[in-house]
C-alpha cells in the first residue's frame, strides 16, 4: 500500500493561468455553451469570484460593476434571478448573497426582504421549495439555511422541522437524497450535511456509515465519483471532501492521490480545470478543483469553509461580528 507519489513529479497549480482564464471567461460570450449558460450567470459569477478570492486575486475585478449588475437581478419578492430579466429562485439568491459576502457588501441588501423571500419557501413538513412553483429538494433546504445563517435570520424559519425533513431523507447506506427515499448522491449529501452542520445538528448523522459510503467514492486514479459505478469528476473533490471534513472522516481517503488527480485536470497552457484529465475546462470545475485543493490545504490557496462554501476569513468576518 506504499504510495508511489514520490516516484513521479507532482504537477503544480498554475494559479496565475486560472486567474486569467476566469477573467477572460466573462468576456467570451460567443460559444453555444456560454449562450445556454446565460440563465445561471449568478452561479457562474459566484464560482469565478470565489475562485479568485481563494487565489487572493479578488482585487482584479471591479466591485461596483459586479454589484450593480447583481442588484438588477433582484425581484420585488426579495429573491434573485440568475440574470437580468429572469425569474427568481433560491439557487441564485444564495449565490447573490455569497457574492456580496465576498465583497463585504451585505449592508446594501434589504435583509428583511431577502430573508422573507427565503423563509416564505418553507413548507409545512419543514422542506423547502426552490421557488413559487413548488419543486422540493434538500438542495433548497441547504440553500435556505446557509443563506439565512449568513444573513443572521435563521429565527425566521422552523429550524427543527427543517432538520427533521433532512433527516427523513437519510438512506440505509448512510447517505442522503433529494427527497425521502431518493438515491444517495454526493452533491445531495453535501447539502444535507452542510445544513445539519450549520444548524448544529450533526448528531443525526451516522458518521461512520456515511464516511464509509463517501470514502468508497475514491477510485483507482485517486479521483472521486459522486455515486457508485460512475467515473471520477473534479467537482466531487468538493462535495465528497467537504462532507468528509464536516463529519471528521477526511483521513479515510488518500489525499495525496486526490491532489494529483485535480492537478492532472488543469489546462496547463490556457488555465482552467476540467472534470477529468484531458477534457475541456469550464468555470464550474475550475471552482470545484481549486476549492477541493483548498480543503486539502494546498499551499498558496486560502482556506475555504466546508459548510458555507466561502473563504474562512469571509465567514469569520460575518459570524464574528454582530
Amino acid at each position, binding site marked *: 500500500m506504499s504510495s508511489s507519489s514520490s516516484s513521479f513529479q507532482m504537477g503544480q497549480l498554475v494559479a496565475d493561468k486560472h486567474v486569467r482564464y476566469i477573467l477572460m471567461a466573462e468576456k467570451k460570450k460567443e460559444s453555444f455553451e456560454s449562450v445556454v449558460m446565460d440563465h445561471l450567470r449568478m452561479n457562474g459569477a459566484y464560482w469565478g469570484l470565489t475562485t479568485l478570492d481563494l487565489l487572493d486575486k479578488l482585487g482584479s475585478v471591479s466591485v461596483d460593476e459586479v454589484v450593480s449588475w447583481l442588484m438588477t437581478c433582484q425581484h420585488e419578492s426579495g429573491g434573485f434571478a440568475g440574470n437580468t430579466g*429572469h425569474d427568481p429562485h433560491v439557487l441564485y439568491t444564495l449565490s447573490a448573497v455569497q457574492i456580496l459576502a465576498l465583497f463585504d457588501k451585505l449592508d446594501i441588501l434589504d435583509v428583511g426582504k431577502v430573508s422573507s423571500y427565503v423563509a416564505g419557501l418553507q413548507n409545512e413538513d419543514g422542506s423547502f421549495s426552490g421557488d413559487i412553483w413548488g419543486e422540493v429538494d434538500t438542495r433548497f433546504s441547504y440553500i435556505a439555511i446557509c443563506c439565512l445563517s449568513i444573513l443572521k435570520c435563521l429565527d425566521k424559519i422552523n429550524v427543527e422541522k427543517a432538520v427533521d425533513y433532512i433527516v427523513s431523507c437519510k438512506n*440505509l447506506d448512510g447517505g442522503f437524497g433529494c427527497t425521502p427515499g431518493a438515491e444517495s448522491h454526493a452533491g445531495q449529501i453535501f447539502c444535507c450535511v452542510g445544513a445539519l452542520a450549520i444548524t448544529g445538528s450533526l448528531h443525526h448523522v451516522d458518521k461512520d456509515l456515511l464516511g464509509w459510503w463517501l*470514502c468508497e467514492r475514491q477510485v483507482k486514479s485517486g479521483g472521486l465519483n459522486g455515486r457508485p459505478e460512475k467515473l471520477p469528476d473534479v467537482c466531487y473533490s468538493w462535495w465528497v471532501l467537504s462532507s468528509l471534513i464536516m463529519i471528521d472522516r477526511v483521513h479515510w481517503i488518500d489525499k495525496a492521490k486526490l491532489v494529483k488527480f485535480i492537478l492532472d485536470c488543469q489546462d496547463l497552457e490556457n488555465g482552467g480545470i476540467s472534470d477529468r484529465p484531458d477534457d475541456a475546462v469550464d468555470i464550474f470545475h475550475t471552482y470545484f478543483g481549486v476549492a477541493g485543493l483548498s480543503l486539502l490545504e494546498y499551499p498558496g490557496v486560502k482556506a475555504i469553509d466546508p459548510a458555507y462554501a466561502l473563504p474562512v476569513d469571509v465567514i469569520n468576518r460575518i459570524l464574528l461580528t454582530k
Partner: protein
Amino acid sequence: MGQESCSQEDCFDLLNQFEHVLESDPLIDEVGFIHPSLFTILDKEAGSSSEEASTSFWNQDHKLGISTDILIQLCKVAKHAFLTALKEYKRHENASSEFLTENISSGVSCPTLESKVMKHSQALLLLSSDFGTAWNARKLILSKQNQPYGFTEELRLSRLVLSNFSKSEPTWSHRRWIIKMISQSFSTPQEIITKESELVESIGERSKMNYRAWYHRCWLVSYMTIEQVLQELNKCKRWAGLHVADSSCFHYRRRLMLRVLEPLKVKGSNDNDKTEAHKIWMEELDWNKELVIRYLGREALWLHRRFLSLTWLMYFCGNQSSETGECIVMNEEIGIFVDNEIYLLQSSMTFPDNKFEDFQAQALHASVYMLWLTKNIPELWRMLEEKLGTEKLKCVLNTVDQERPSLLLHQIDIFAAKHNNDC
C-alpha cells in the same frame, strides 16, 4: 457573413422557419443537434430527395435535426423573442388586473400574447432546456387555462425536450408539476404512472445512470398503489438484469421494496403481507446472487446485496421491525443465512488468475460487503470468526486492507473496543 452573426432579419427568419417546422409537424418525437454534413447522408438513408432541402433543419419520420451551424444564432434570437414576448404579456396582465381592481372590465383578452409566449418558449426550450424562466412562463399560462388538453400537450413537449436533454433537471421538474396539476384537477395519476415509468426506462437505455430520470421514477412510487408497486418490481427486473452496472435502477428497486415493507412496520400488520414480502426478499436475494456470480466485480450488485441482507436480517430473520441493527437477536435462521453468505464470500475469493481485474474487484467487493454487514450488525463478527476461522478471516481483511485501509483500521478499532468491553 460569418457563422457567429447574422442580420437581425435573417435571425428572425431562422426562428420563423424553426417554429414553422414545429407547428407543421406536431408529431415530432425526437430532436437532435447535427452537423450539416449529415443532412445529405440522412436524406439518402431515408430515401428522400426533397426539392428544396433546408440547410438548417432536417425533418423526416417525425425526427428533427437542427444544424449545429445555426445553433448560436437561433438560440440567441429565440431567447430575445421569448423575453420580449414575456415582458409584453406581463405588462398586459398587470394593466388588466389594475383595470379589474377599479371595477372596469378591460375587455381585452390576450390570447395572442399568450400564444406568442408559448410559441417562443417552446422554441427556446428545445435549444436551451434549463432556461427556467421559460418553463415558468408556460406554467403560469397553463395554470390559467387549466385545460386537460393543454397539460397533455405539455407532457409531449417536455418529452421531446428530454429526447435531446435527458439530464435536464428543470425539464423533469416541470413534468412533475404537470402531473400534479393533472392529478389535482382531472384524473387519478395511475395511468400516467405507467407511462412515466416506461419513459424513464427508455431514457435510461440511452443515458446510463441518469440520476434525474431515475429520481423521477422514484418520485412516482409514493403515488402508486401497492399493486402497482408489485407490478413495477416485476416489470423492471428484466431491465435491471441487462444493466447490472446501473446502480440507480437498483436503487429504484430498493425504493419499491421499502414501500412493500411499510405496512409491516405498523403494529398489527397482517400475516399475508408478511408472507408476500418474505417471498419478495427471498427471490431478490437469490436473483442477486445469480447476477453477482455471473457478472464479476460489479459494485452496483454488491451494494444491492448489502441492502437486501441488512433488511433481511432486520425484518425477516425472526426479528420484528427493528429500525436499527442494534437489537438483532441471533438465532438459527440467522446462522443459516450467514453460512450461505460465507459460502458466497469464499467462492468470490477463489479465482484462477489474479491478473484479471474483475476477479480482484469481486474479491474486494465481497470482503467489504462482509465487513459492512458486521459494521451494521456487530454481533455478526463473532459468528464470522467462528465459522470462517482465523486464517481465512485474515485473508478477507488483507483484501480490504489493500484497497481501503482506513475502513479496516476503523472497523478493527471498533471490534477491539467491543472486545475489551465484553471482557
